[in-house]
């Protein structure tokens, strides 16, 4: 279970060196509490994806500090040795497209993460089924991803992101391929899950329909974040 969400201070990322160097992040500050869902919005090229990749431990930030739960994971350098285990155990991902593994059924798509962490298959499947029930897709537990609707696939993807109970979930435009009704449903689910599992959720989005649903929004422009209080409608 999570501790104190995620805390980011002065995070910088520079691509290249010398004259060709590009500062994609120039000192990002963010804080997301457990159970909170915040929006991260900004135009193309503003640094959203770079920030997401730094938070997801798939690229190395140049400087700054990141605290995940109670653990300092980055302080001008990674403080954890196994970034793969960090991603597997402490960070959940929800992508623009569900990217479910096509040859695994719904249960095993969700149970794969705990299995990778060494949890026995039966126990991992039980955890997966519990989440699928919470997300109301338990009736499709034995279905293959290709047999699901877009909304169902996204709910399964959310379940996969949550299954290891990470302190933080990074959602990269999770509503982009969905219509308004389904997009709102996904945001509602994310809010419910954040509260239920005490998870900090960062939602990167362009979607004008869902931006008003966030209580707090981080605007990122030219590699710098600006915090703004959102309308927070609809999911109290």
């Amino acid at each position, binding site marked *: 279970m999570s501790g104190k969400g995620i805390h980011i201070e002065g995070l910088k990322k520079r691509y290249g060196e010398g004259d060709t160097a590009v500062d994609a992040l120039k000192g990002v500050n963010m804080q997301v509490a457990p159970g909170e869902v915040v929006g991260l919005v900004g135009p193309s090229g503003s640094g*959203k*994806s*770079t920030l*997401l*990749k730094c938070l*997801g431990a*798939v*690229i190395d930030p140049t400087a700054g500090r990141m605290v995940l739960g109670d653990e300092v994971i980055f302080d001008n350098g990674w403080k954890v040795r196994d970034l*793969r*285990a960090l*991603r*597997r*155990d402490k960070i959940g*991902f929800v*992508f*623009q497209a569900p*990217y479910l*593994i*096509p*040859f*695994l059924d719904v249960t*095993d798509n969700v149970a*794969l*993460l705990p*299995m*990778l*962490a060494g949890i026995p*298959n039966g126990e991992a499947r039980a955890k997966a089924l519990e989440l699928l029930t919470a997300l109301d897709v338990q009736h499709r537990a034995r279905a*293959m991803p290709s047999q699901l609707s877009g909304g169902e696939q996204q709910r399964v993807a959310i379940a*996969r992101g949550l299954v290891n109970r990470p302190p933080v979930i990074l959602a*990269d*435009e999770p509503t982009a391929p969905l219509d308004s009704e389904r997009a709102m449903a996904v945001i509602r689910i994310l809010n419910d899950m954040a509260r239920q599992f005490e998870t900090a959720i960062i939602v990167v989005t362009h979607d004008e329909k869902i931006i008003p649903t966030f209580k707090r929004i981080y605007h990122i422009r030219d590699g710098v974040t600006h915090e703004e209080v959102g309308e927070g409608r609809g999911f109290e």
Partner: protein
Amino acid sequence: MISLAGRDILHSWGKFVFTGVGLGLLIGVTLSMAGIYRGMVDDAKVMLDNTSADLWVVQQGTQGPYAESSSLYDDLYRSLLAMPGVEYAANVTYLIMQVGHGEQDVSTMVVGVTAGKPGTPGQPRNLVAGRHITRSHYEAVADITSGFQLGERIRIRRNLYTVVGLSKRTVSYNGDPMVFIPIKDAQEAQFLKDNDALVQQRRRNADNPAFNRAGIPDLLAVVNASQSANTYVNAVLVKLKPGTLPEDAAEPIRRWKRLQIYTRTQMESILMDKVIAKSARQIALFLVILSIVSAAIVAFIIYTLTLGKIREIAVLKLIGTKNRTIAGMIMQQSLALGVIGFVVGKITATFWVPIFPKYVLLEPLDSVAGFFAVLAICALASLVAIRMALKVDPAEAIGG
């Protein structure tokens, strides 16, 4: 942990099975090629076995009678019978001929053998019908694969022979069926000239002052007679008394008779190294090429299958899957493809081998070796796809 490879194969089994069948046909060809080589070796060994000989006595300085021609006087065997350790000695001739069978010719090896008591070397073993040759002329025993029937009359050169017996697995080193005929008939078939050639020969002799001398009126007749008779055979097959070592018996013959002697081991070595060596190298090269083609096909298929899963691999890496798990998944799929291919190949080879015109011997040990070779090839072939998968950046799963 679930088997990702197994699940992927079950999910797209049709693709794997059809690819495996295609690969299997190629593996079937490879196994058959190995079987053809084994068949050639077995044919050569069977030919030696069928002679029942312990020693081959041939013309000095030659590697006859199979690898090159050899010529010996046909009465030589009498003196060999007196040599220490020799139980039987029998003349033999070998002649590759087209034997008339109805309106068609059958490619055969005609063997001239000495009629004798049981155990005489050279006589066909494994009679499956009829009897051995008992008369001195115009009888034949044929291998069953020649297609000749008991009682059938076959033509060898100018003479007709009655098939009195049929034998099994009596073939030459190149797989042709053997036809056994009496040694005298074989000598005639091998060396005697046709009538026109004889007339020509006699005219030349008559015109030659060395043969046609006024002071020696019988000389021309003697020369003509000597040229009309054939007293040569290709080899003498020697069977040794029980307990006699081949080299112990060979040495005195080599020393006192000034002839070339080969033991069974040496003769087998000549056949393998001189007679079928080039064919064996040819088949070995085919095997290498087929192995490379199989590896290239597996590599291409696995690479293509992996290429279609790049996004899934990026997601797997992003959510914390170890490289070793991903590499294992690809390698297991490649090995599974190899197993499917091998099973299909083995079955198809077993079914199509009987229709090959030559003897094809599928050795169980070759199949075992082939199975492991297929697995090794598939494992190697998967390395390209594994390398590509390991280079996939998990960041590819995140947009932007």
